[in-house]
């Protein structure tokens, strides 16, 4: 054992290393989140946390459960693929508890124009009009049922629409002259 007679300082060093490693191990146990490394080099629990955020858009399936008439009208019209909340806005709160929040009826002058204002940048097949020229200030919903916009495609609005369109455009063009 004479070889180890002068090796005491080495063992002290080794002891220090072992203690340092243990301290590191204990601190690491506290600092690194438990789910870190579950799927990769990140905190696995973060996935479930992000997935648990509340939703704001209910989704058209939720709307159609109650508003069957509108869904029915829409399913036969040109707006069949336009989802409810594309126009009415995010309404998960209303879907969860209809009394807690009543949606505001969208302003058709702003809403319709957003998509249907004519522009050379839009795809050629997309129905577009110059709002000033097309309706002369008469609100779109006077003639078009937004849920089934082609005039004549919806029996309920057609009669009203023809009446108001006749008087409305006459009055409007009269005003313009």
């Amino acid at each position, binding site marked *: 054992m004479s070889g180890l007679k002068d090796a005491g300082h080495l063992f002290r060093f080794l002891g220090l290393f072992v203690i340092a490693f243990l301290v590191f191990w204990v601190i690491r146990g506290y600092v690194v989140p438990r789910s870190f490394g579950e*799927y990769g080099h*990140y905190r696995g629990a973060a996935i479930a946390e992000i997935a648990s*955020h509340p939703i*704001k858009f209910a*989704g058209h399936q939720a709307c159609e459960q109650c508003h069957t008439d509108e869904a029915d009208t829409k399913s036969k019209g040109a707006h069949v*693929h336009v989802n409810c909340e594309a126009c009415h*806005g995010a309404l998960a709160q209303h879907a969860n508890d209809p009394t807690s929040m009543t949606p505001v009826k969208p302003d058709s002058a702003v809403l319709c124009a957003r998509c249907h204002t004519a522009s050379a940048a839009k*795809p050629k097949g997309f129905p577009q009009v110059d709002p000033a020229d097309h309706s002369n200030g008469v609100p779109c919903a006077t003639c078009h049922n937004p849920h089934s916009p082609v005039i004549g495609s919806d029996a309920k609005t057609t009669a009203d629409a023809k009446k108001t369109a006749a008087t409305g455009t006459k009055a409007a063009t009269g005003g313009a002259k």
Partner: protein
Amino acid sequence: MNISRRHILVLLPAAALAWKHVLAGTPEDSPNYKLSEHWWGMLIDIPKCIGCGNCVRACQAENDVPDGFFRTWVERYHVSDYHLENPEVISPDGGKEGFPVAQEDNGKYFFVPKMCNHCSDSPCTQVCPVGATFVTPDGVVLIDQTYCLGCAYCVQACPYGCRYIHPTKKVADKCTLCYHRITKGLTTACCEACPTGARQLADLKNPNDPIHEFLKTHAVQVLKPQMATGAKAFYNGLDGSVR
């Protein structure tokens, strides 16, 4: 058992708390969702986009995106004759309120909605020094905002400019592909709000997803394919001038 008034005073609030917990439940839970059964992407059909900005507004409403920052935005390209290399691109306020009316000329116009491409070999996750951003087993690039330091390495690394530092949280923020919605069986807010079907959520692991038929029958491209990011935002009708 003899319950005194003192006992009831102690028990009532406890019972109320317990009942509140029962009432609240865990409504946002998604117990039937399996990470291994999905591989998410997005289909963006450029010829269908009308530049209405519905997706941008929907995204901001759904995800509380601060004003002036965008998880998705729409660009309008104007490529005049012989100028494929120099398109004129505008995106006023991310296209949130639509675009100014364009006049017909000898060039061409089109809209390009942009968002996180949810790359499977994403440069942004590779540079994160703390493991705060990652690709989930179902193919969505997410940020663990409780872990993010806000160093912005990822913001610089993203070749598509899809990340930003949140002005109040001071951590990286970006599109989550509405992870809180798709794990509950809903589509993303932008897809829900798109009136023309120009954006469609795609689950590449679902054999019944229409994406497979679409990819087979259309000429589809991703942005910056030369960067080999494994981007999963598939663009139909992507013009060569798009950067």
